[in-house]
């Protein structure tokens, strides 16, 4: 029994949420309390498991030789695809983040009562889909989980979303599927020529793989495949100009949906860059590093500008994701540009890569926190229009303090988590992509603008008397959602090395 657990710990982690989803569907629909607590308890299991994995994980092992907790089973032998899972220092933090945010998101959804059963089941399914992407070591399996996650998210937005949910959910899924089309085709082409979809094989042999097709040279096809990968992941991240699905999806998604969407779903794209694009296409990455950097800088700048131009608080927070994920992309671009560079360039690129991975975690925490706080407000006020608020700090001192705290984490205030990762990205990317980093500073300035705009319009200013007696402080449940996030933000801001060491080692192996 114990041996089984040892040997299949990843599978157990992966399928616990899915099984829990099934179990939820079998519970009586009317027992709302039972459903809630069951789902919450069930989502704590993966969290516990991920902690266990974290403790068992040995950061010193080289993933290029073997991933940890690896599992291999034939899945679709007829086309050479297998069920291959494993973790390394890049994926472990993402897995842990997913396992952390899901219970919090479920806890944040305790107010939902319509079709609660389906809602919770979808959430748990979503968790399995996301975890699968982070664990998959088979290209096709990666794609399977990549797309599977779309379905629950689509229905979460479409069924429990706001007024414009139909448009938003369709845009979300079509945009993402359209983006992944090239990825799918490229994966097929690669798998066909490599004879298997196994990532470890591909990491080793991809350079010598001949992909020529359509009478194009292999190098040209690789370039096309590179861009297919890039676009698919860029849509998910999302990188400007592929981002316009995001604000709509966020605005319409229920609070918990936004938390997961911003907290982990966006990370899938960034993870794709780190896991696949950079290791598989180093030459192409190096060649197009300036383009990636330009996109990253554009995301940082335009994301911040667009956020600053919003009148809806949730849209503002949504655009902040474009802005923040731009730093992840900047880190990726820095790594890309350092391919073939000297030792100093490699060292810089590693710093940038660590920063990018850490930024993924940090943005996961702070964006989930921000969306939750927007949800707390929306639950009470039923509006998110910035000009309808004002002076709420007087009514909600505790909420206001938390709001400022999380906003500041998102802004990248030193002492809180966001700073460390942005610093590492900037420091790492600077010698490689100076001009782009300098341009990104414009975005950094506007980051301040929109964050302060949020605080200014919501908390500060003359009190809108309409809210007196309407708005109440956060409940114990709401505290329970935000406190773990805040604790991690602070912890990562002050003492990041417990996580960064893990990431840094992984980055040293890969880049």
């Amino acid at each position: 029994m114990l041996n089984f657990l040892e040997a299949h710990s990843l599978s157990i982690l992966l399928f616990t949420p899915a099984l829990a989803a099934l179990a939820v569907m079998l519970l009586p629909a009317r027992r709302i309390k039972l459903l809630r607590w069951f789902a919450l308890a069930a989502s704590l299991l993966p969290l516990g498991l991920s902690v266990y994995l974290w403790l068992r994980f040995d950061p010193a092992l080289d993933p290029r030789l073997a991933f940890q907790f690896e599992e291999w089973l034939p899945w679709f032998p007829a086309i050479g695809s297998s069920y291959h899972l494993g973790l390394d220092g890049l994926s472990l933090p993402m897995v842990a983040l997913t396992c952390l945010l899901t219970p919090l998101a479920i806890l944040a959804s305790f107010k939902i009562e319509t079709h609660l059963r389906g809602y919770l089941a979808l959430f748990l399914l979503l968790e399995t889909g996301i975890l699968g992407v982070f664990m998959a070591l088979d290209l096709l399996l990666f794609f399977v989980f990549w797309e599977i996650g779309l379905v629950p998210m689509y229905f979460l937005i479409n069924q429990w979303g706001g007024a414009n949910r139909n448009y938003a959910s369709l845009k979300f899924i079509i945009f993402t599927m359209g983006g992944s089309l090239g990825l799918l085709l490229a994966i097929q082409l690669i798998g066909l020529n490599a004879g298997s979809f196994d990532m470890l094989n591909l990491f080793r042999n991809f350079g010598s793989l001949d992909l020529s097709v359509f009478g194009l040279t292999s190098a040209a096809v690789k370039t096309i495949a590179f861009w297919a990968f890039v676009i698919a992941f860029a849509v998910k991240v999302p990188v400007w100009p592929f981002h316009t699905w995001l604000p709509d999806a966020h605005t319409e998604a229920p609070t918990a949906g936004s938390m997961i969407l911003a907290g982990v779903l966006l990370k899938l794209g960034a993870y794709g860059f780190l896991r696949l694009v950079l290791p598989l296409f180093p030459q192409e990455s190096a060649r197009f590093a300036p383009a990636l950097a330009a996109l990253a800088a554009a995301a940082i700048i335009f994301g911040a500008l667009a956020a600053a131009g919003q009148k809806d608080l949730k849209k503002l927070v949504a655009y902040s994701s474009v802005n923040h994920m731009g730093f992840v992309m900047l880190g990726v671009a820095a790594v890309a540009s350092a391919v073939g560079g000297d030792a100093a360039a490699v060292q810089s690129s590693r710093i940038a890569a660590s920063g990018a991975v850490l930024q993924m975690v940090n943005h996961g925490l702070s964006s989930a926190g921000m969306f939750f706080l927007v949800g707390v407000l929306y639950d009470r006020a039923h509006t998110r229009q910035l000009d309808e608020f004002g002076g709420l700090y007087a009514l909600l001192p505790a909420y206001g303090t938390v709001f400022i705290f999380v906003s500041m984490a998102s802004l990248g205030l030193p002492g809180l988590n966001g700073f460390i990762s942005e610093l590492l990205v900037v420091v790492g990317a600077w010698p490689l992509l100076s001009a782009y980093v300098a341009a990104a500073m414009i975005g950094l300035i506007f980051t301040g603008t929109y964050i302060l705009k949020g605080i200014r319009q919501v908390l500060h200013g003359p009190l809108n008397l309409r809210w007196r007696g309407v708005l109440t402080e956060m409940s114990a449940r709401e505290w329970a959602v935000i406190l773990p996030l805040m604790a991690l933000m602070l912890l990562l801001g002050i003492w990041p090395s417990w996580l960064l060491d893990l990431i840094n080692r992984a980055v040293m192996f890969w880049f």
Partner: protein
Amino acid sequence: MQFPYLSVLIFTPLAAAVILLLLPNRQARLIRAIALTASALVLGLSAALFFISSPVVDGYRFIEKIDWLPELGISYHVGVDGFSLPLLLLAGLVAFSGVLVSWNVQDRPREFFSFFMFLVASVLGVFSSLDLFQLFFFFELAVFPKYLMIVMWGSPQTREYGGMKLTLYLFLGSVVALVGVFALYFGSGLNTFDMLALEKAGLPLAFQQIWFPVIFIGFAVLAGIFPFYSWAPDGHVAAPTAVSMLLAGVEMKVGAFAALRIGIELLPQGAQHWAWLILLLGTINVVYGALLAMAQKDLKYVIGYSSVSHMGLVLIGFAALNQQGLLGAGLQMFSHGVMTALFFAVVGMVYDRTHTRDIGQLGGLARFMPLAAFGFIVSGLVSMGMPGFSGFVAEIPIYLGAWRVAPWVAVVSAVSIVITAAYILLVVRRVFFGEVPQSLSALEDIHTRDKLVVLMLSLVMIAVGLLPGLISAGISDGVNRILQLLGGSL
């Protein structure tokens, strides 16, 4: 001698059909009971065959052969390989589901179920035939019950038109194919209709090149090949639910299957010569069908055109003529069969309660019939090629196969994935979610029987999607046999 599994399988529905004809219409319950029993037997037996058949055995199994007209080389000769076994299972699934969803047929149940059983018997016959003449016999056996069921129980507005159109197309197709079959018979000079013998006939290249298109296209009309597809949407729409299920779910595969068995297996070099054309037509099917499906306002037409689109993938898989393509085609035939049967079943359930199929007049049905919505969504996800469902594991090998021979086919037809997603999601949203129109208030939920159908078919698709090895292992085996016929070169 081995137990004659296949004969039992084929003759059970045939016998049921004859027995049913002898019963009085008053005995509706008995009629239904017999039909259900027969279809359950078919399902059970086909499933049993599927599972007891060891995938490692090469070639045909469960072979039975009885000479019938030896002087003409005609015999009763049945046998299945890895390729046809899933199709038998599919037929069993759809037959059983078809009976369940037709439970409430009030109008002449005796004839309805009898004809239905004839249809089931005919498809089972085609899938297990190893004799050309016999295959053709079963192929044609379906024509009359099909026509009659459409014109008698079909939707009143279009059944005349749809039934006639369908019959005409299929008739013309089979005439063309028949000519080809005779040409084969004479061309081989072996004086036999035995397909196993004809496989080894070593027909001259020129002969193969001339007759392949005739045979392939002739049969492929039933698979809805472009530009001879237009019977399919009209016919599906006109037919009663169970017939739509069988027609789109299984009959179209019959066409594809016959095209493969006779066209490709007996004329492999002809197939290689003409593969480009099939690829082209298949690609047009895929994209064109998807675009048209998007423009439809009638729920059933959407499904009808989506079938055209998906059958295009089967054709592409065939024409790739390689391991991946054929494997994918086999999987897609099964997957699409189950999917489209479930689609039509749910549409039937919706129509029974709302008496409309106009997408604009429907809405919010998930509130009344959540499981039907679930079934439709699962089918939709399969249709979108969403990973985790059978559609994905079927499409991937097809694309892989296409990449190897004609990358542009993979690239162009992949566009349909997004278009499919768009129209499926739009339909799901409009029909099952959103506001309930006033005309539709207080609908009943679907019946337990219907739920059984939905669950059964959905689970099959999910199971295959998660564990493609369930089906693909057997198909690979059949594929290898075909590859040998193709010279193993590809």
